[in-house]
């Protein structure tokens, strides 16, 4: 680990001021950043500890929830309103990491965690365009069973590892930001970027910007939602494919639907093609399969991850089937 300056902030404005120097990074639970620093993949000049900032989870006037970015993952998953009104979010968080890590990790840090691509971690022996822009990607021709099938580029095929973000993407969550130029907000689905030619730029955040809160809109459909994660072992592993879905069936037809995928792309993947195909149509297993196929139509498999196309298709259809059965 390279030397750094440590400072603790008690509110967002102070954190942004403390982070003004070049090379400063915000520190949440440290479950990803401290590990990357120990591997010297991250070498911040300063760490601004933001775990003391707002961590409250409260109702908004609109009827949604506002979640302070310093809230721990466990606190969000165990919150009664999240469990009853946005169950896919509670289940997504509980599907991620281990209980110890969920007790440490903040919501803001979960959003900004970095890929677990093994070539990104292997700075002694592998090329990676995230670590050294322009040097090439050893994952594209390497062991890429866990890598992206949607939205990847010739420069990067890494996936975003978060489970929580998949549910947030499905539920139209909005991210509140503070920065040197003031406060602003953006949809979570616009915060993470696709890799394109610059996979080292992972988000739409401006220099020095800090996530202060996540807002969930009032979304009655989310009360009938779930999250399914498919992985190599039953617990404590990253997703091969995951699905967050909410479904509203009326008179046998899909009145409304929300669908997002994890483990398949450089960002949490909102499945808008499938949603479009489903809305207004019959709530049948055949229609679920057709919609899933439409979402996966642009998928581009690598040497080892072609199985994800069928796995994602089946998982989408199965989760929608489960929710439709529940609604019936």
């Amino acid at each position, binding site marked *: *680990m390279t*030397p*750094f*300056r*440590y400072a*603790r902030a008690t509110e967002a404005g102070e954190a942004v001021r403390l982070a003004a120097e070049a090379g400063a990074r915000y*520190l949440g*639970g*440290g*479950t990803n950043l*401290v*590990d990357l620093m*120990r591997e010297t993949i991250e070498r911040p000049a300063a*760490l601004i*500890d933001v*775990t003391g900032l707002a961590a409250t989870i409260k109702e908004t006037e609109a009827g949604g929830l506002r979640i302070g970015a310093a809230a721990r993952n*466990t606190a969000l*998953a*165990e919150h009664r309103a999240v*469990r*009853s009104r946005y*169950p896919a979010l*509670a*289940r997504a968080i*509980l*599907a991620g*990491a*281990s*209980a*110890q*890590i969920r*007790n*440490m990790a903040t919501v803001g840090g979960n959003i900004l965690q970095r890929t677990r691509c093994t070539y990104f971690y292997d700075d002694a022996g592998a090329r990676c365009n995230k670590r050294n822009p322009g040097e090439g990607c050893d994952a594209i021709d390497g062991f890429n069973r866990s890598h992206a099938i949607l939205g990847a580029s010739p420069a990067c095929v890494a996936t975003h590892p978060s489970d929580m973000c998949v549910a947030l993407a499905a539920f139209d969550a909005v991210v509140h930001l503070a920065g040197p130029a003031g406060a602003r907000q953006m949809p979570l689905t616009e915060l993470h970027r696709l890799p394109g030619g610059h996979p080292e730029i992972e988000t739409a955040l401006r220099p020095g910007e800090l996530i202060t809160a996540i807002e969930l809109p009032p979304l009655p459909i989310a009360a009938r939602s779930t999250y399914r994660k498919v992985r190599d072992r*039953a*617990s*404590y592993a990253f997703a091969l494919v995951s699905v967050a879905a909410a479904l509203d069936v009326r008179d046998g037809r899909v009145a409304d639907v929300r669908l997002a995928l994890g483990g398949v792309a450089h960002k949490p993947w909102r499945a808008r093609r499938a949603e479009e195909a489903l809305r207004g149509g019959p709530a049948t297993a055949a229609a679920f399969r057709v919609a899933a196929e439409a979402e996966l139509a642009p998928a581009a498999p690598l040497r080892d991850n072609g199985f994800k196309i069928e796995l994602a298709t089946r998982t989408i259809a199965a989760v929608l089937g489960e929710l439709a059965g529940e609604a019936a």
Partner: protein
Amino acid sequence: MPMRINGAEAALPPDPRVSLLDLLRETLHLHGTKKGCNQGACGACTVLLDGERILSCLTLAVQCEGRSVTTIEGLGGEQGLHPLQEAFIEHDAFQCGYCTPGQICSAVGMAAELRRGVPSLVTADLDAPGIAPDPAELRERMSGNLCRCGSHNGIIAAIAAHCAGAAE
């Protein structure tokens, strides 16, 4: 402000790079907490921070200012072992013992989470007021603690017996 470790005050390290795990082992010579993977994958370094189970390898010691840490050395008391330590002995819940301090600290934190009603991935009804500590729940909740000797059956038996006894 210092931190408290097993009830005693401990100074923060001057270098912010020092992990809580290294502070415990190298500075304070509390060798019960173990360094397994040192990257958050094995759970051997699990301790309780203000009563919650966390990984000391990924925690910077400076982040613990003013907070209270309990390690395996702090679980028992004057009167003897912690009941979970007794249960681990009773149920042969270890072979080499390297993961055991982390397993026990994790189980203490897990039992508190269960009492608080924190759900897990295998909890069928997220709205249920209480959660029964059946083996599937315990296995899922303890998945962050690996045992390379494969003593997981004994570990789950020990924790199940402890949870059942504590509920009486």
